[in-house]
């Protein structure tokens, strides 16, 4: 809850390239973002905009070719893989994947996947299971699901397990990559509620999505990623109500809403023409 | 070298005989179908109705067609198709005229003159004359890869006397020369073609009954009748197609369905072939198989062990299990009944395992103490019989199959091996090959039994038609059989199957002579 001023994550001028030599493509260009404790930042972008790459760079799964990444004040941009492993083992940063079925080993019972981060840390099995139960309760899952295989759970249950797994190391920052896209309404609401609680408990969240709508309810700030650059960063209400960049405007205008279309078809067409020009 | 053929070639013995099954089934069907060579066999490719074709599947397809190079094994029988020699043998094994009309020894017996038939030519048109014969003998003695020079040690030099007379000068008195210079050792190639031996090896040119028209190495050869052969009027076969035989099993079905009409046969297939309505016959020959011992190496440096092996060997078992009644037991390098076969030695070392054990005991050897490797070139049931017979007296034998068997064998490096000879027309040659100090088949070189050398010299000095020739020859055999290096086991048959339309072959021992043979419909 307490925002002590020092950001959990600070990314400055991040550059990421894929491929070698002539096939080299720039995926992220000069991306900067900082996230403080208890803050939720939505990163919005379409397929191929670089949003997953952003997450992977922060997690050290992709090597940045420029810029700096500070986690909890520590500059990790030049970390060796050994250092990275040590950092990850502390569990400061966690990650939740979009597809909960694929992010849980289908052959291992839920409990095994859940407590894996603790086991990696060297926590005793018994204690790990005990703690695991607690976190399962925190995501409102019955601990009788413990022995089940992921294939035997519903999509919403699986995603809760994935969230619990991310929570189990008491991370300062959780990055969620499209955590609700694969879920239907009831589960979506359930997960979003849990995220809100987390935020209120002081965990910093980065919520990645292609859909502004799914982020709007929980994000304090929104960063719009378009073709590898943040074209608009700002408070959620500001971005939604007064988007500046044409892409941001299109994004807002395209989001399906219940009672009032944010933009008319004609407006959208105009924006598209503008973007493609 | 040469004279010996390693008996059962891998493919002949081992696999094979699937035929039988076929035959069993076929027997029924056949009775309904009549002769098998019906419908399916469009193969014949025969042109006019009258022309006759011999379709021969051979397990001994020659690897070399230069007679000087390819002298070994049973292949000379096939090379006799395109090549003729100075002499050939008749049904009794005597030398009779071939390219040479006649021959005469000088009074000392160390020089023999062959008188050639006039006006003969090789199939390339080169005349068959004294120079050509001299060329052939010289080549056999001197060509780098000659397989024959070991057989020609009695010949000092060759000269010509006129166009048609060849004078052979000998190093010793030797009345075996007319037998020696027959089809087995000296098939004569055109000197013109032989100028390039490598080429000759792929394109045989001789003065034999047939002319090669197509040759696919290792696979197939097509020949047609040679109208210029001296005895062409007695050759009634127009074409010959000789192919390398398939698996034993299919040989009989091939014969039965008319793909072939003549083939050599593994004894195990005889029953099937007969059931298929084929003519199955044994061509007389000099075949003899042996167990070769090296007395220069332990344990055979102990004469008692050698004797134990002799007593432990049961020839009859080889005959029963390997030849299906077509072979004969023999303890000599000849089948019984042959002129060189010594009846007095017939019971030299009778089968007596008890005695064998006793001998080993006397030598202070406990059962199982002797462990030997029996090295052979290809899988052979005979080895398994040897193994079990020796096991019965307490000698443990391990069979080792070695593709490069020939190298250690002829370098006399092996301790125990098997060999089988197809024999030679000249019995002396057979004897020296086995028992002589440098005989290629004597695994114990330079060992030689006492008195053997003298006995052989005496045979050479005895004219073939001398009345005491058999006794002298048998005495030499008897002397040779004292050798501790060889234990003879059995005589395997030259077994053939032919379509009934082919008339009987001349019973010339160890040869296949097509003179007078007809092929009907």
């Amino acid at each position: 809850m307490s925002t002590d001023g020092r950001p959990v994550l600070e990314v400055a001028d991040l550059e990421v390239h894929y491929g070698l030599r002539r096939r080299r493509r720039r995926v992220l260009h000069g991306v900067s973002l900082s996230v403080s404790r208890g803050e939720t930042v939505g990163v919005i972008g379409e397929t191929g905009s670089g949003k997953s790459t952003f997450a992977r760079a922060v997690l050290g799964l992709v090597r940045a070719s420029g810029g700096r990444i500070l986690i909890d004040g520590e500059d990790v941009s030049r970390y060796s893989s050994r250092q990275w492993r040590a950092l990850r083992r502390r569990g400061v940063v966690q990650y939740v994947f979009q597809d909960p079925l694929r992010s849980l080993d289908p052959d291992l019972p839920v409990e095994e996947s859940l407590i894996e981060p603790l086991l990696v840390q060297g926590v005793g099995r018994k204690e790990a299971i005990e703690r695991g139960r607690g976190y399962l309760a925190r995501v409102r899952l019955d601990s009788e699901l413990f022995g089940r295989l992921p294939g035997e759970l519903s999509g919403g249950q699986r995603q809760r397990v994935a969230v619990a797994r991310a929570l189990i190391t008491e991370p300062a920052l959780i990055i969620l990559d499209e955590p609700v896209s694969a879920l239907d309404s009831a589960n979506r609401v359930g997960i979003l509620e849990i995220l809100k609680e987390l935020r209120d408990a002081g965990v910093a969240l980065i919520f990645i999505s292609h859909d502004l709508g799914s982020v709007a309810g929980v994000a304090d700030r929104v960063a719009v990623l378009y073709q590898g650059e943040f074209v608009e960063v700002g408070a959620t209400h500001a971005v939604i109500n007064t988007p500046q960049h044409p892409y941001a405007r299109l994004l807002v205008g395209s989001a399906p809403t219940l009672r009032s279309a944010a933009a008319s078809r004609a407006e959208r067409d105009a924006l598209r023409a503008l973007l493609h020009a | 070298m040469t004279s010996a053929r390693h008996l059962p070639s891998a493919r002949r013995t081992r696999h094979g005989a699937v035929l039988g099954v076929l035959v069993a089934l076929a027997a029924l069907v056949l009775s309904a179908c009549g002769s098998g060579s019906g419908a399916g066999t469009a193969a014949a490719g025969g042109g006019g109705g009258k022309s006759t074709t011999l379709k021969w599947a051979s397990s001994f397809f020659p690897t070399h067609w230069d007679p000087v190079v390819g002298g070994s094994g049973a292949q000379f029988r096939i090379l006799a198709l395109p090549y003729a020699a100075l002499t050939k043998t008749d049904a009794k094994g005597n030398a009779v005229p071939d390219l040479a009309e006649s021959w005469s020894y000088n009074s000392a017996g160390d020089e023999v003159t062959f008188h050639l038939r006039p006006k003969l030519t090789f199939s390339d048109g080169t005349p068959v004359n004294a120079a050509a014969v001299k060329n052939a003998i010289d080549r056999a003695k001197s060509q780098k890869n000659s397989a024959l020079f070991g057989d020609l040690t009695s010949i000092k030099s060759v000269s010509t006397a006129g166009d048609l007379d060849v004078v052979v000068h000998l190093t010793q008195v030797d009345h075996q020369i007319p037998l020696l210079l027959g089809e087995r050792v000296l098939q004569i190639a055109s000197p013109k073609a032989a100028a390039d031996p490598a080429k000759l090896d792929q394109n045989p040119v001789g003065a034999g009954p047939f002319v090669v028209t197509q040759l696919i190495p290792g696979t197939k050869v097509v020949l047609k009748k040679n109208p210029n052969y001296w005895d062409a009027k007695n050759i009634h076969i127009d074409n010959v197609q000789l192919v390398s035989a398939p698996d034993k099993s299919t040989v009989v079905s091939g014969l039965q369905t008319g793909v072939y009409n003549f083939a050599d046969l593994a004894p195990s297939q005889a029953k099937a072939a007969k059931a298929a309505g084929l003519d199955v016959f044994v061509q007389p020959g000099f075949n003899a198989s042996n167990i070769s011992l090296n007395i220069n190496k332990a344990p055979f440096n102990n004469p008692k062990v050698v004797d134990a092996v002799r007593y432990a060997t049961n020839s009859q078992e080889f005959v029963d299990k390997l030849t299906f009644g077509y072979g004969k037991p023999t303890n000599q390098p000849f089948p019984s009944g042959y002129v060189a076969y010594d009846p007095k030695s017939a019971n030299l070392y009778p089968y007596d395992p008890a005695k064998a054990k006793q001998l080993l005991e006397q030598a202070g050897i406990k059962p199982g103490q002797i462990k030997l490797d029996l090295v052979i070139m290809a899988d052979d049931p005979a080895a398994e019989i040897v193994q079990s017979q020796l096991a019965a007296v307490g000698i443990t034998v391990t069979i080792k199959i070695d593709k490069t068997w020939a190298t250690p064998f002829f370098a006399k490096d092996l301790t125990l091996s098997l060999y089988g000879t197809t024999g030679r027309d000249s019995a002396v040659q057979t004897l020296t090959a086995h028992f002589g100090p440098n005989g290629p088949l004597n695994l114990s070189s330079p060992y030689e039994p006492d008195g053997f050398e003298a006995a052989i010299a005496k045979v050479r000095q005895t004219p073939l038609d001398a009345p005491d020739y058999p006794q002298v020859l048998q005495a030499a055999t008897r002397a040779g059989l004292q050798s501790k290096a060889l234990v003879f086991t059995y005589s395997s048959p030259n077994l053939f199957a032919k379509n009934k339309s082919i008339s009987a072959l001349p019973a010339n021992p160890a040869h296949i002579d097509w003179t007078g043979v007809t092929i009907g419909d």
Partner: protein
Amino acid sequence: MVRRVLALPTGRLAVGVLSVIALLAILGPTLAPHNPLGTSALTLTGPSWKHWLGTDYLGRDVFSRLLAGSRTSVLGSVEVALIALAVGVVPGILSVYLGRGFEWFTLRIADTLLALPFLIYAVAVTALLGNGIPQAMFTVGVLVSPLFYRVTRAATLAVARSQYVEAALISGASIGWIARRHVWGKVLPPVAVALAQTIGVGFVVVSSLSFLGIGVQPPAPTWGGLLASDLGYLSYQPWAPIVPALLIMATVWGSNLLADAIRDVSGEAGRALLNSRRARARRLNPAEPIPAGGAAR
């Protein structure tokens, strides 16, 4: 896994057949009523009370030889499979982790081995390098190893790219941890399938080689060798090849069946299959036609 295989009727059948064969391999030599190498004067006889399957060309008891030969035969093809496994699996896993150079190199080797017509190569190698069952086994084993290489590689790749491995990685797990916890269990079933398959292949190849007279070590009996030699005496014992041929076929068939069964029950799909079988067992509606456009009534 074992329980799941046994849940399928084909799995039970395969395990049954293979157990009998394995039992033969273990006990066969001791069960033989006669000395398998003991010759007698009675050659090529038909079945009798004393010689259940008759005698062979040297008068040896065929039944005893079959029993005695079962161990060599079975061990032979198991050996082929194990060699292939040893040669294939490790590079298969490593190819995913050891970088592009190694990956390229091993892939090309695997391609090469695949391109070699293995019977010809086995004939060549065994004939040229000495005529022994070990040489034959080794050659065949190496030549079929690409199967293991590919299978392992594919499985490892799938795991390596999976999110749950990434999740473990993000938790700070080491490569060793991931291999033990995630990779192993995924790679095992396909390897088991390949192993079962290879045992079958090994049997056929080794018996083919025996038929060609390669790799035979007389007088030791093997099924392939017996079959090959029986084919030489068909006119005397036309029925003789049937028993070794059936044994070979049963073994190959059993292995293939087992391979299929393992494949069917492994992984997510396997669980689904078993569940649906259980479900279907409760209902009696048989064949499902392919929905090729008819109305669903």
